[in-house]
């Protein structure tokens, strides 16, 4: 199994063995990610970070990962002040930047942008989100968090919130199906998981249950993964408030949960999780955010050939 020069575009191109190898590598790199030990593994390598739309957290996570491994970061900077503003195509931008770097992290507002970039790049492209399309490194860090804080084998997980538009939960479901997880989907009817994804999961012999009540599901799961319900999806603000409040995770709700239940969230949160939950052993979302660093370190080290 070699990852050198591999483009990271979509979770669908990763087998369970490949995912396990990435998670194993991330675990080995975790002491470096937390600054406990130092590394110059990527000394002399340059990572180009091209964010065509803002995502501060993901960008900083990649930059931290590269710097922790002793490499340098080259940032596209403001799109408004670049050649893109002059009308340069993404294909041309990629062909230029590949000459300056050993790998390119790309965040773009158009779906399929990372795939297109990979067709013009001789260095690995890492998709950091393309429109409503894929965001594979988020899924890797979600899987890593579940493995570190709970368990992937025999997992019972509930996904709550906007399951219709939430790309992170779509990719996560597919990845979890490789581990035989039992999945409970909690959402208002307007934001249900697309039927074709549920069908795909069931065709993989995954037990999938749908409900609109978080109270019904919480007692039986190991992980509760909440996502943000976007206000703009609701034409009527009153409908939004009703739905948002019905899926709120509170300390009272968590009294019904297993003692080792972990609450995850890709962040940023709005009112899905009561801040009082932060002080309970269930809260896992800030650790989840940190785990993005060792996971992205693993991916960078693997695709740049510093590790096998």
């Amino acid at each position: 199994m070699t990852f050198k020069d591999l483009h990271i575009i979509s979770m669908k191109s990763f087998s369970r063995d490949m995912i396990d190898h990435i998670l194993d590598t991330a675990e080995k790199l975790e002491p470096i990610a937390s600054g406990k030990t130092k590394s110059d593994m990527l000394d002399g390598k340059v990572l180009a970070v091209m964010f065509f739309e803002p995502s501060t957290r993901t960008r900083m996570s990649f930059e931290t990962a590269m710097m922790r491994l002793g490499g340098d970061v080259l940032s596209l900077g403001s799109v408004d002040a670049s050649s893109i503003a002059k009308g340069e195509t993404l294909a041309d931008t990629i062909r230029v930047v590949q000459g300056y770097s050993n790998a390119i992290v790309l965040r773009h507002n158009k779906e399929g942008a990372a795939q297109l970039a990979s067709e013009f790049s001789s260095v690995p492209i890492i998709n950091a989100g393309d429109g409503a399309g894929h965001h594979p490194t988020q899924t890797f860090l979600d899987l890593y968090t579940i493995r570190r804080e709970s368990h992937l084998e025999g997992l019972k997980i509930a996904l709550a919130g906007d399951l219709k538009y939430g790309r992170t939960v779509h990719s996560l479901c597919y990845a979890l199906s490789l581990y035989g997880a039992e999945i409970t989907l909690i959402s208002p009817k307007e934001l249900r998981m697309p039927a074709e994804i549920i069908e795909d999961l069931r065709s993989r012999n995954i037990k999938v249950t749908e409900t609109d009540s978080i109270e019904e599901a919480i007692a039986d799961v190991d992980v509760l993964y909440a996502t943000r319900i976007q206000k703009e999806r609701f034409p009527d603000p009153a409908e939004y408030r009703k739905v948002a409040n019905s899926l709120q995770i509170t300390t009272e709700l968590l009294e019904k949960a297993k003692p080792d239940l972990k609450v995850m969230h890709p962040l940023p949160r709005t009112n899905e999780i009561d801040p009082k939950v932060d002080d309970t052993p269930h809260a896992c979302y800030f650790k989840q955010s940190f785990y993005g660093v060792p996971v992205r370190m693993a991916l960078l080290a693997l695709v740049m050939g510093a590790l096998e």
Partner: protein
Amino acid sequence: MSNGETPVPEIRVHPIKNGTVIDHITAGQALNVLNILNIPNAASGVISIIINAPSVHGIKDVVKIEGRELNVDEVDKISLISPKATINIIRNFEVSEKTHVHIPEIVGGVVKCINPNCISNSNEPVSSKFTVSTDGQRIVLRCLYCERIISEDIGNHLL
């Protein structure tokens, strides 16, 4: 052209000496086939079109083109809107070759992605690309860039 079917439609048009008969076109798709073949144009020979002809498998369309044989790209496109079509090459009034259309695994530059936010619909130096599969009777196209699926009215999205 009998193929054991009811011969009624065939007697309504004259046989052709040299050219192509596209038979078993999915009913209603004949005009899209003409679009694919860029017909009519100044160089078109005589074209005969039969729409909603009865056959043993239901109704079908038929297109007869004088003096022209189709290329592979044209046949690939026809397969997307009419997967059961047959291509009959006519030479000197005889069926010289008869083939079923071949459904390609990937088509490029043939169909426009329906997702307005797909990178293939922006000003990039790439053609649209789709993987092709079948879902029972239907052709299902999946964009290689954004993964959006087209399975209805493919003829309306041909480039």
